């Protein structure tokens, strides 16, 4: 079994969350941590668990560099791929972590979405406390 975390981060907030999740996950399962710039789309199907991390831009939108990944999953993913999405944003915008919601709705339909997680700017203690729960839900055997 293998997991992959693919993220994008301009000012480092989403990267901090990605790293925290990685550190937790890697003690359970072989995990790759990758920035979207280095990610090869054709490798998605190599993974059993696929985790996406994104900040939100514009008006609750995906950052430009995440659009191709969104489209790729939309057209190529399968219902058995277990996925999760997390992100950072700012609650002063009307759509807090809108990019996480965008991914969530698509992943829910196209894949086996396990969990979502939103953080305001860089993670605080209460956010770090949620990381083990995030990982547990991700790895939990699905009861469907």
């Amino acid at each position, binding site marked *: 079994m293998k997991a992959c975390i693919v993220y994008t981060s301009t000012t480092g907030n989403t990267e901090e969350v990605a790293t925290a999740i990685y550190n937790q996950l890697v003690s359970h399962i072989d995990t790759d941590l990758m920035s979207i710039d280095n990610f090869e789309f054709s490798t998605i199907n190599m993974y059993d668990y696929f985790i996406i991390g994104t900040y939100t831009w514009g008006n609750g939108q995906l950052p430009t560099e995440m659009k191709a990944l969104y489209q790729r999953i939309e057209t190529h993913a399968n219902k058995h791929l277990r996925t999760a999405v997390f992100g950072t944003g700012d*609650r002063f*915008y009307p759509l807090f972590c809108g990019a996480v919601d965008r991914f969530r709705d698509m992943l*829910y339909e196209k894949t086996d979405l396990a969990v979502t997680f939103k953080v305001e700017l860089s993670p605080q203690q209460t956010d770090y406390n949620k990381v083990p729960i995030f990982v547990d839900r991700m790895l939990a055997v699905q009861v469907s």
Partner: protein
Amino acid sequence: MKVDQPLQSIKLLNPAQPNKSTGIINGQSSGILNWNDISHPQMYELYQTLLGNFWKAQEINMQDDVKQWDRLSDTERDIFLRVNTQLASLDSLQTPTMTEVMHYVTDSSFKAILAVISQQEAVHNESYSYILSSLVPLSEQNKRFNEAKEDPIVQKRNQLILDAYQQFIDRPTPQHLFELAVNSINLEGIYFYSGFAFFYHLARQQKMLKTSTMISYIQRDEMQHAYFISQFIRILLSENKELNTEANIEYIYQTIGKAIELEKEWADHILKDIDGIELDEFHNYLEYLANKRFRQLGLDNYYPERDNPMAWIHVFSDEMMNETKSDFFEQKSRTYTKVSSSNGFDEL
């Protein structure tokens, strides 16, 4: 580099130097800007987003607010005018200050963004005038601006920022630039928020919605300015080790801390007679706000960690602002069902 040595106002064109600047201050830079070849490529995205925000006051029809104005209580009208002139006074400082900084910044892409910020501040400034002109005669406006200038609480509050801005104008050293930038976060990222709270509070009661629409545009711009200035400070410190000292980190905590105390004092004064805004809760809100500013600067929280106590203080949604969206998701008909607890799905 000496942090107390004045920066040289840079030559317009330095043909022998690279287009891609080697630093945001004291860098080698030709002065020619090719956005495809810049040191911090993320700045292009930000520049485009800022431009995309373009709006002007006249596009917002004040008719509804004009009708409601007479139905506000005397207190509401009084606070409305005080807050308005106070915000206008702050924005008036920001346009020339950003221009001042431009003279010494050696990265052309940063200069361009500062030019856009300066332009947006000019629009904000005008929008306060536009609101005033729709509601009260010039004599009343002038009286209010004079009161704002003379109000001791306002003076005390503004002095913190004025001192930092003026010392950079008098002696433009790297240290003073750093201090100016921190105070710019105070101005754009903290001092506006009691005012925002007041206008959004009226909006919650369906009052003066056109004014709040403008406030929403202003807040969105200001949030992006604070995002930029935070990046500016972080890059400034990382490129210039001499500035990246414990004393300067302490300066950030002290100065934003001071601004928060002054903002609390101002809020107590201005919001005390407004029903529905608890002052204690607003103090907590300000501390939550300050923590966000610290984290944007890559620092730890200074105040206790807490959830946003006043979640209604935020930019209006597109529907409220009557904006037509044309994004990635509207181009194709992507019609995924919104996932929520009703589908048995809870976010963490």
